[in-house]
Every structure is written in C-alpha cells, then in structure tokens.
C-alpha cells in the first residue's frame, strides 16, 4: 500500500509508459493476447505430497518471484524469504526481480500466458484484482491456509495469522490474496517535538482542535497531507472519523455500494469537521506537493500531524533526524462518537500466486515460508513493520513508531475496522481523491462532497461492466 514517490527514475518510466499510450501500442498489447490467451500451461510443476512437503512442491522446479520495490524495498525477499525457500529446496532456481511499476511490467506477461509464479502486487500501479480474479489468473489459496504451518505441524497456517487476514484477501468467498503486512493507520507526530513543547496527545475532538490552535500559535503548520499524490491518506482519515461516529457499518455500506451510504449523517459530519481542519490549520501549498516533500517538512519540525500508515517510520528512516521518534495517535473521534477508541488497521501489502504460472505449488510454499516465524521475524527486523503472523514481533526490540502503533492497536481492542472499496472500485477511489482535495482545500463543502461521492457510487452500481463485490 505504500506510496511510491515521483523520482526521476519512475518519471522516466512513466514517460516510457506514455509512449505505450499511442493508439497503435494498444494494438501491440492485444497482439500478445491473441498469442497466449486462455490455455493453461500444459505442465505445472508438481511433486509428491508428504509431511515435509505438504503442498506437493517439485523441488527441482524453478520459481519466479516479482517484488514491488516500494516502501519495503526488496531486501526482505532476497535476504530472508528466498533463502528460506532455497534451504528447503536446494535444487530450485529462484528468479528474482523487483519493479516499481507492477502493472506496466507484468500486464503483458499475464495477457501472454507466461506470468511469474509469485507476485507482490502493490504500489500505485498495481494490477486490478477484480480483473485478475475474473480472468482466473489467481491461485485459490485455500490449500495453503489449510496446510500445517512451518513451525508447528499441529497448527494450520491460517491459525497462525492475525484475525481478519484471510478475509482481507477473500473475494466472493475464495481466498486469493495474502495480505502480509499488518498496518495501523493514524496521525503521526514527533514524540520529541511534543515533549519539547509540552503538548499532550488529545483524546477528544475538542482537545484536538485546541491543540491545533496551540500548534498554530507556535508557528508550526498543525496538520498536513500531500495533495498531489497522497489524498487517499486523508480520505482514510475522513472515513475513519465517519466510522467512529456512526459505527463500522458506515464503511461496510460504502463497500457494498448501499443506497445513501455516502450521504449518511456520520459521513457528512466527518466531512464537515475535516473541512474545518483544512480551512483553519492547513497550508494551501501542500495540495501541490508530494508525499516526501510534505514528510520532509515534518522531519524539519515545520508540520505537526501527518496522516499515514505504520510503514511511514521505515520509509522515512533515511531522512528522519536522530531522536525524532515517530509516534501515532488514532484519528480523533467527534465528541459523543459511538466508537471513540476505534482504529483503522488492516492486513495490507498483497501477494498472490499465479494460477496459470509454471509453478503455483512452489508459489504457495514460498508463502508458507513467509508465514513461518523465521520469515515474519526477518521481515519485521528489516522493515520495522508488523506482519500478519500473530505475535511474530515478540522478542524483537521494536522501534519507537512501531511500539506506539502496537500500543494503539492494543488500546483499540475489538474496535478495529477497514474498508475495501478502494481496491474493488478504482473509479470510486479516483473520485474520492479528487473530492477530498476539493473538500480539504476549500473548493467544495461537506454536502457537495457527500453528494458527489454518492453520485459516483450510484453510477458504479448501475454500470454492468464493473464486477461487484460484497462483504
């Protein structure tokens, strides 16, 4: 889920993609299709199933792994997970590659019928899951989750995961996607700055706005997000507020495209409150900046609160000054909210195995290794992020930001929620990004925001060409 930044390199690649855009290039893409098409590979590698090899992997078959090179980098794959697989199957060749543009790089291969076995489908240019599933490209992971876990043969893999992980990758009843990283979302700040200034973390909305006043008086921008490429960080905040006011069903209705889901009073109130924050406590210029530019301002002590997920600390580690100490607070709830301690947290960072690849069993075994305690611990140590493997962080010295995230998570108890419309209906995601900027930077009010979103949701519901999902 982490955002890839607009570096010169990605920019050049995007321009290359722009070259792809010309009409004839679309034809070339389709040319791949007519070549490959639907036929399943004749021979998918398969070995003998036994206690040591519950998924029946052919130990001699090569395995191709493609990693999204974003916030988590690729080191965890090359240094932790691939060696684990290799240790189990020493004869297996692992072909590793990493990219920042998953869709641009891999789409033609899926269309052509030669997909890689294992894919980390992430970043802003990930391939649409609905389309992949509709097309039968994703391996059903039921067998993996039912297999005995690496560490304890008496336990199934699914029993070792944080509750909700399997569901988060389930589409219309079947688990197709493994969401590996457990992410806590909230408002991030520098513990050091708050300590130096004597500010305390607010618990209620009134306290929150009071603190923002104090921060503003101190000459620091109280609240910021990057409008140019990260408005979805802010819409997550608005919808979290709405769920706290009206309960998590608010988000469920939005996901299910229920009638009037966006015009619910809770959504309206949340939009109103955040529009006020935008008008009073934000810097207009931030609409034109990207994630890293606004983050840099926070690292320099010019911005107090920044909404994001728990990958932030690791992603920023190179530019954060010594002793900055990231900490997170839950999105504050309106006074009198039904779920004041609620928290947006979910298993994210999706991985899948290609159903039409040469070695789907190897891909599933690779996942099983990722989900071992060794695999998870290695990831946590490298990336300072929690994984979907329950309790894997025990015994590891956690960074300040991660300690804070797990404390917030503990405090939320069962009040943890999330939405899924953003990956189900990308048109809705695009509209919400635009609407969020318009709301937060004062071009539209809360009513216009809700009506606009409802109109888009209704249009998607009425559009028969879009595959629908429910939860």
């Amino acid at each position, binding site marked *: 889920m982490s955002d890839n930044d607009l570096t010169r390199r990605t920019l050049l690649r995007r321009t290359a993609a722009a070259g792809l855009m010309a009409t*004839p290039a679309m034809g070339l893409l389709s040319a791949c299709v007519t070549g490959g098409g639907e036929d399943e590979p004749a021979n998918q590698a398969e070995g003998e199933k036994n206690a040591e090899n519950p998924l029946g992997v052919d130990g001699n078959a090569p395995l191709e792994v493609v990693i999204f090179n974003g916030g988590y980098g690729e080191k965890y794959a090359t240094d932790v997970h691939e060696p684990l697989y290799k240790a189990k199957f020493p004869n297996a060749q692992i072909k590793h590659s990493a990219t920042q543009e998953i869709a641009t790089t891999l789409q033609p291969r899926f269309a052509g019928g030669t997909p890689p076995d294992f894919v980390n489908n992430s970043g802003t240019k990930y391939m649409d899951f609905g389309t992949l599933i509709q097309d039968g490209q994703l391996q059903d992971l039921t067998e993996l989750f039912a297999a005995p876990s690496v560490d304890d043969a008496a336990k199934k893999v699914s029993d070792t995961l944080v509750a909700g992980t399997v569901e988060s990758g389930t589409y219309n009843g079947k688990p197709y996607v493994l969401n590996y990283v457990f992410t806590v979302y909230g408002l991030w700040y520098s513990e050091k700055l708050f300590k130096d200034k004597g500010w305390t973390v607010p618990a209620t909305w009134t306290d929150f706005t009071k603190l923002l006043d104090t921060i503003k008086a101190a000459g620091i921008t109280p609240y910021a997000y990057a409008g140019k490429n990260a408005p979805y960080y802010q819409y997550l905040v608005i919808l979290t507020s709405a769920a706290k006011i009206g309960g998590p069903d608010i988000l469920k209705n939005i996901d299910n495209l229920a009638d009037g889901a966006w015009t619910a009073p809770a959504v309206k109130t949340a939009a109103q409150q955040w529009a006020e924050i935008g008008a009073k406590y934000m810097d207009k210029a931030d609409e034109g900046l990207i994630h890293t530019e606004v983050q840099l301002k926070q690292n320099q002590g010019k911005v107090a609160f920044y909404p994001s997920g728990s990958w932030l600390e690791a992603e920023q580690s190179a530019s954060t000054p010594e002793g900055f100490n990231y900490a997170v607070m839950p999105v504050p709830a309106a006074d009198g909210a039904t779920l004041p301690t609620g928290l947006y947290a979910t298993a994210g960072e999706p991985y899948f195995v290609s159903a039409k690849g040469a070695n789907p069993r190897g891909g599933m075994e690779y996942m099983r290794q990722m989900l071992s305690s060794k695999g998870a611990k290695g990831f946590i140590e490298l990336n300072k992020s929690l994984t979907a493997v329950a309790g894997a962080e025990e015994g590891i010295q956690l960074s300040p930001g991660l300690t804070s995230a797990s404390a917030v998570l503990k405090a939320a108890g069962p009040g943890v929620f999330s939405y899924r419309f953003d990956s189900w209906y990308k048109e809705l995601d695009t509209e919400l990004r635009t609407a969020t900027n318009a709301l937060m930077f004062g071009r539209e009010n809360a009513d216009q925001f809700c009506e606009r979103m409802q109109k888009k949701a209704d249009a998607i519901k009425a559009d028969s060409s879009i595959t629908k999902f429910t939860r």
Partner: protein
Amino acid sequence: MRHGKYPFVIGFLAAPVTIYVVFVIAPYAQAFYMALTNWRGLSPGQFIGLENFTRLFQDDVFWKALQHHGILLLALPLVTIIIALFLAFMLNVGGGSKQGIMTGVWGSKFYRVVFFLPQVLAVAILGVLFQSVYRPDGSGMINSLVTKIGLEPIGFLINPDLALWSIIAVLVWQAVGFYVVLFSAGMSNIPKDIYEAAMLDGATRMSMFFRVTLPLLWDTLQVAWVYLGIAAFDAFAIVQTLTVDQGGPDGSTTVIGMEIYRNAFTYSKYGYASAMGVALFFLTITFAALSLRVSRRESVEM
C-alpha cells in the same frame, strides 16, 4: 538502369514497408477492433459493437478533456507562433543592414542556441524541472521571488483557474525554440535584396515584417500550425508528471491521453481506452485536414 528496375525497387522497399505494416498499420487496425470489445487486459474480450463509443459520448470527463484540447488548440499554436516569429525576425533581420546585408540583433548566434535548448530536454526532465519552478510554497523558483516582494505565493498548479494555463506555458516554453529555428530557416530563404529594396523605400521594421516576411513565410507557418495543433492533442506527459492528482485539481487539467492512461492502466478498461484512442485519432486527422484546407492559398511567386 532499365534492366531489373522492379526487383531493385521491391528489394529496397520490402523491408521498410513490412516493418511499417507490422508495427504501425497492424496495431492501428487492432486498436480499432479493440475499441469494439470490452477487453480488460488479460484474456480476449467480447465484441460489444459501438457500446464503448456510446459510453464515451456520455462521459463528462471525456468532454472536459475535449474542452481542454479546444483551449490548447487555440492557445498553443497562436502563442508559440507569435513568440517564435518575433524571435526569429529579431535573430535574422532585426539588427538592420550592415554593409548592405541584413543581420540579426547583437549576439543572435548565442540566443539561437539558448532558445533551442528546451527542445533538447526530454519531456520527463521538463516535468521535474517545472515541479520546482511552479512549487506552490516559498521554496518554488517563481514563488520564492514572489514571496520576497511580500506577495502571497501563486498556486500555479493548485488553482483550478490557473492550472491549465500553467501547463500551456510549459508547452509553449518548450516548443518555441524549435519554431524559431524553423522560421529562421524559412527567413534565410527570402532573398536579401527584397528587404534592401524595402528599406530603400523607407519601410519600417514593422511593415517589413508584415509585408515581406510574413507572406513569404506562409508555407512554413502552415506547417508549424499543423504540427502545433497535433501537439495540442497530446500534452499527456506534462499533465501526468506535473499536475495535482494527475489531471487535477478537480479535473481542470485532464487531457484525453491522461484519461486513456487511467482507463487502461488504472481501471483495466482497455477496450474503452482504445475507443478513446480511436476518437483521438480521428480528431487529430480531422484537425490536420481541416487546417491544411482552410489555410491553403497561392504561394507567392518570386
């Protein structure tokens, strides 16, 4: 050379024509077919006739993009050609006559190189460059000056009323250099004695420009107009790299290329994106044909 003429010609043409058919004509044909399907990027889609086009004509975003192309189509060629003409004139005949030969203003050789430089830069680099030029806070290249004299920073790309014009400015900035060179070449073809005769008759620079240079440069201008018009149907790369939320704020800078990209690579609607591509193709062709016909006129005999 009569003997074996055809084998010779065919031998030379076979390779380029084959390459052209395989890599240009065939993909075009396929894109036209794809526009009639609901292909989603993986296995082949179903044939759905003109449904994509019906959808397209009801799509607000498409019309908005079209409207932006309308503005671009007026502003980009006009501004670019005016500036380029002025600069080319100054570089070639603006300096007046020296020992009977018309010359450019002082240092014109240096200026020529400077003007052409933006043309050499890749569009992607231009995007990065103008990110810092247009940056909306006090650390932007323009806004650091603006704030220094005590004014509010200008939201070049975050003000919906201003964003498209900021994009047009970048496009003009990039294009001008090329047309300065093109027009210079055109002007150097105009016999010097015409200018001298005009000067002996006491013509001012202004009337020399309008009565001598412009009419004799008409063919070149026509080419420039068509080229710039076609460029006005693109603008994708700059919009993609520079604008807020890719085409924002509030869709105020989106162009058809941007929407094709979004529909194909974000929504996986390749069929629909192809329909947009086909629409764009016909728009461009129509524009080129129309403007060549409208601007046709007798070339001046010399």
